């Protein structure tokens, strides 16, 4: 028994389990829960921060973090549900104010709760991957207030209503609006986007759709654009005042789409006020507004550009094909220049000098200037006119400006070689007749042409200037060597290099004997100094100053052409000469003779000759007398030749033919150059490359290129590939 008893005797192990008072956690949580209640009830002044902080710390330390956290969620949710009710109960306009007030309260409470639970925020939350207190507070607010059924839709409609009221001109409380929007943004960008931005954009689209329809029915284009601009600025301002900056692009997009993109075509083509009218009336401000608004929408600018281009092409086409304007080349070019100035100004002032618009302008001009095949001639004539007389009294800068503008037109020309032809002719006339006003201006234009088209283009033109200079020296040398010639008529010879000048082979007329002798002296002098050269006289290009005494003793100095001089000199020995006699004596070609007689007998005020019978035209049976009754108030009388400034039809054809003739070797040279480097090339590529190479001078005609290729094959520069007939092969 005793043994049994002994066996039964056991010493209990001293088990002192450290157990925290099971009610400890509950008690502590009650304290904290109470504090949260007090905070929400604006009654926090009685709370001790140290005590609350320590309690929360202890709960986490003793592994009651989970309980603390879930308790917080429950308590806060309960409070938010209360708040939600009081917000719902708010009437009318007070709704937003109540929401805002409660939001501020919640924020403050949240801050205090976070302070108390700071230790949990630092240790328990990151390790258990839970939402930090502040974020948790925002999320709960979002779920229990903003997304609660009754508030969500009411909040949205209230906000949209306010925006609508502001759009219709009412003044709203922007501060309240800003606070509310800021709350949505604080809750996360997705809340702002889903609960406000998306519906806001939809409602705005609807609003502007209706409004733009209303405007477009009753406004003209300019007014409509003004209104659209105002609306756009209003929306941008609204963003700055109370919406998220990121919404700016989205809302302006809506306005752009509804007010501009959807009505673009109608606006541009609006009758009496559309784009074409704006262009016609130089409405820079309206055009600028249209540009700035249309720039915002896709294809907006291209639409303006297209309409402008087609309008420009249309008017340009009328301008260049108008028979009326072709009559006066100077006027023709002046109108082109004016048109260009007009559009330059529009693009500069309204279209912010956009490159694409400049390109459109250039391509349009290129298009219609080349519609008239006489454009190169006219432009050269315009320059001729300016350099003959137009530049007197104009400052150097202005000359440059005019020349630059002409160069602009020149750039548009496809047939630059035709221009060169005419320019050479006109320059020759100016130089030989000493009519050129400013040597500087002439040279400046040559330099411009040179930079534009290269050395080749102007080498002959420069040769002409050199000839003029050397001729001056030659004449000085001639008279220095022949002092005996100081008495008697003076001869001025310009020695022109063949090839540089546009000379036509002409039959030399019979000069008066005095002159013929002088010419012979000069010839021997010139050939004496320059061996191996040949001189031929271009009597059709010369001028002469002669002194004449008429019947009553009136003395005049007559400024005439060489032909006219020859004719007049005949009257030194005769009173009456018939047409036939004159023709025989002078051997001037008939057409020239007729013109020259016409200018002396039929022009009022210059009629140094008298004709029988009196008529406007020269007949082969007419007879001529010295007009003894000739009077003029000037001592010097310039007798011009009746020349058509513009080329006549046959002359034009002739020039054309010469141009075509000149192009042939150029085309051939280009073909050979290309084939030499490529060795083998197919037909289409040859055409393309040749066209490209010659573009700066003229637009090569494909059939002509083909002919040149044939000719080169004949001359065995090229051959066709035996397998592929389209391939050409270069033969070295």
């Amino acid at each position: 028994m005793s043994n049994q008893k002994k066996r039964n005797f056991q010493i209990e192990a001293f088990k002192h389990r450290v157990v925290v008072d099971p009610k400890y956690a509950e008690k502590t949580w009650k304290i904290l829960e109470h504090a949260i209640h007090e905070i929400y009830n604006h009654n926090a002044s009685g709370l001790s921060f140290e005590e609350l902080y320590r309690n929360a710390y202890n709960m986490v330390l003793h592994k009651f973090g989970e309980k603390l956290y879930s308790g917080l969620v429950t308590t806060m949710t309960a409070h938010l549900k209360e708040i939600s009710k009081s917000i719902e109960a708010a009437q009318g306009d007070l709704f937003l104010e109540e929401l805002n007030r409660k939001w501020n309260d919640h924020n403050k409470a949240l801050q205090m709760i976070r302070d108390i639970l700071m230790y949990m925020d630092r240790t328990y939350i990151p390790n258990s991957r839970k939402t930090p207190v502040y974020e948790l507070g925002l999320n709960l607010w979002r779920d229990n207030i903003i997304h609660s059924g009754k508030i969500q839709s009411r909040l949205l409609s209230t906000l949209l209503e306010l925006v609508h009221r502001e759009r219709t001109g009412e003044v709203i409380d922007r501060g309240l609006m800003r606070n509310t929007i800021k709350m949505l943004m604080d809750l996360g960008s997705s809340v702002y986007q889903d609960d406000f931005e998306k519906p806001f954009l939809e409602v705005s689209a609807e609003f502007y759709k209706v409004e733009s329809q209303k405007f477009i029915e009753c406004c003209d284009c300019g007014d409509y654009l003004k209104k659209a601009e105002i609306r756009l600025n209003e929306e941008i301002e609204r963003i700055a005042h109370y919406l998220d900056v990121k919404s700016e692009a989205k809302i302006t997009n809506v306005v752009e789409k509804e007010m501009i993109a959807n009505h673009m075509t109608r606006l541009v083509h609006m009758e009496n006020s559309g784009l074409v009218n704006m262009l016609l009336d130089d409405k820079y401000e309206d055009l600028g507004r249209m540009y700035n608004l249309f720039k915002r929408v896709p294809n907006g600018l291209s639409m303006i550009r297209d309409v402008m281009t087609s309008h420009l092409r249309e008017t340009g086409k009328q301008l260049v094909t108008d028979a009326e304007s072709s009559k006066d080349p100077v006027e023709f070019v002046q109108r082109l220049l004016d048109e260009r100035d007009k559009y330059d100004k529009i693009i500069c002032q309204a279209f912010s000098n956009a490159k694409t618009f400049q390109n459109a302008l250039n391509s349009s001009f290129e298009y219609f200037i080349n519609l008239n095949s006489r454009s190169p001639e006219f432009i050269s004539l315009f320059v001729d006119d300016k350099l003959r007389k137009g530049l007197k009294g104009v400052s150097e800068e202005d000359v440059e400006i005019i020349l630059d503008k002409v160069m602009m037109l020149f750039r548009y020309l496809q047939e630059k070689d035709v221009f060169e032809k005419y320019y050479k002719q006109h320059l020759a006339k100016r130089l030989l007749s000493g009519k050129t006003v400013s040597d500087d201006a002439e040279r400046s234009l040559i330099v411009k042409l040179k930079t534009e088209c290269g050395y080749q283009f102007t080498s002959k033109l420069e040769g002409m200037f050199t000839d003029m200079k050397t001729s001056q020296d030659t004449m000085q040398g001639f008279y220095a060597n022949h002092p005996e010639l100081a008495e008697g008529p003076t001869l001025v010879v310009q020695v022109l290099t063949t090839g540089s000048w546009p000379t036509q082979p002409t039959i030399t007329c019979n000069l008066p004997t005095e002159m013929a002798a002088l010419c012979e002296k000069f010839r021997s002098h010139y050939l004496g100094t320059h061996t191996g050269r040949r001189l031929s006289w271009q009597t059709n290009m010369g001028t002469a100053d002669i002194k004449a005494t008429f019947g009553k003793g009136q003395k005049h100095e007559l400024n005439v052409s060489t032909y006219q001089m020859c004719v007049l000199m005949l009257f030194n020995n005769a009173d009456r000469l018939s047409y036939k006699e004159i023709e025989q004596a002078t051997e001037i070609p008939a057409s020239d003779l007729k013109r020259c007689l016409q200018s002396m007998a039929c022009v009022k005020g210059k009629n140094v000759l008298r004709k029988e019978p009196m008529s406007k035209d020269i007949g082969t049976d007419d007879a001529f007398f010295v007009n003894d009754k000739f009077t003029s108030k000037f001592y010097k009388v310039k007798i011009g030749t009746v020349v058509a400034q513009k080329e006549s039809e046959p002359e034009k054809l002739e020039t054309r033919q010469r141009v075509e003739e000149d192009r042939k070797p150029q085309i051939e040279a280009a073909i050979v150059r290309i084939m030499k480097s490529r060795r083998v090339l197919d037909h289409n590529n040859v055409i393309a490359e040749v066209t490209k190479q010659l573009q700066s001078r003229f637009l090569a005609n494909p059939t002509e290129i083909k002919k040149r290729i044939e000719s080169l094959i004949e001359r065995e520069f090229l051959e066709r590939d035996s397998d592929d007939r389209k391939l050409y092969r270069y033969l070295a």
Partner: protein
Amino acid sequence: MGIQKDIVKFNVGGRIFQTTATTLANAGRDSFFGALFDDNWDLRQHQPNSSQEFFIDRNPDCFAVLLDLLRTGDLYIPSNVPERLLYREAMFYGLIDHVRSAKWGPFDGNRLKLSRSVTGRAPGDGTAIRAGPDGGCCVAHGSMVHVFDWMLEEHPPINLDYQRVNDIGWVNAENVLISACERLGKGDGGMGLFNSSTGDLRHKFNVVHDNQIKSYTAGALSFSPDYKIFASCKGRSNEYGIGVWDQVTGKQMDFFYESPGWSLGDADKLQWLNGSNCLLVATLFPRKDNCYISLLDFREKRMVWSWSDIGALLTVDEKRVRDAIAMEECNSICVVNEYDDLGFIDLRINGGSVRWSSRSRLLKGKLPDEPCYPKLALHNGQLFSSMNDCISVFCGPDWVLTSRLRRSYGGSICDFSIGGDRLFALHSEENVFDAWETPSPPII
């Protein structure tokens, strides 16, 4: 002077402290004192006259230390205050970050002092040690990784399916990445991301070849500032190369397959070069018979620079490259051999040779029985090289030896790492690791 209005009086665990609100403001808003003095909790409501003290139920000795920390910015721990207690108190007041930043100064290789040695329990040799960004570290032994925070308190160890760990790395202060061998037949091993304080597995990284998820062995690791993870990978069907993952999504972004005759998947070391946007990959003797160092450009999928000692005449010294590190500022790669000789390869010339500098050969002829391979590290223009039981510090354009760190026990250093202004060295014997830190700057 007038009466100071911001004097506050505390009764901490029975001891009275007086300080000013200004001093306490140094604690910052996210601290006990920051909240205490916030308008919401206006302390002065409870203390209408400053004679009344504010009670805090905490340890007064620690409070004194922390108050001085707020006053001076310096941390002085008297011998009667246990460090652990102090840290706990600092946690309470929300001042732990203040304590950490005051505990040691900014890193300087020439002023390092041994702060502590920690002996681990793990069996076997250490594989790797990595310093964390905030002064903590993790140590890999076999298949286990032990994590220590900056207080050198140990956290729950980490393993990836108990597979042998090849490399470890800190993605940030909260996350550690482990690369491990695969277990044949299962999807185990590879690469995983762990929470550094709890040891939870957060993400396991997959490798996909031909739209199929494959198991793989992950080796050396590297990170780029644009949140990419690089790892050398070996698959079973010769799928060797460098894998690239996004740190944020955890998804594989890219895979650079190794070309025949070259080695990438077995790499000993990866290093992201920010300046040239390239990854340095080094596979070294004795893992392979030859050394391969290359720079990979992932945008062009191209090896932009490479060096190898294949076919190079090995001299009597047998200078085999044992570790390599790219030094972008000097346009060169520094290498080291088992005699602690430093060598340099020019990065600007493809296929250049190693220029050895024999100046540093100080240890030749007295190798210990169980040598560890030397390792290199670069920090703020200072070059560190470990050899046997010490670490040498080299400075200046000519890399002059300026300091040497040595401790008496623990044997050879098998790995070391610099980060969070600390240097950690792992010894091969006894599983000891040392934490070296720079003392706080002098008072004057």
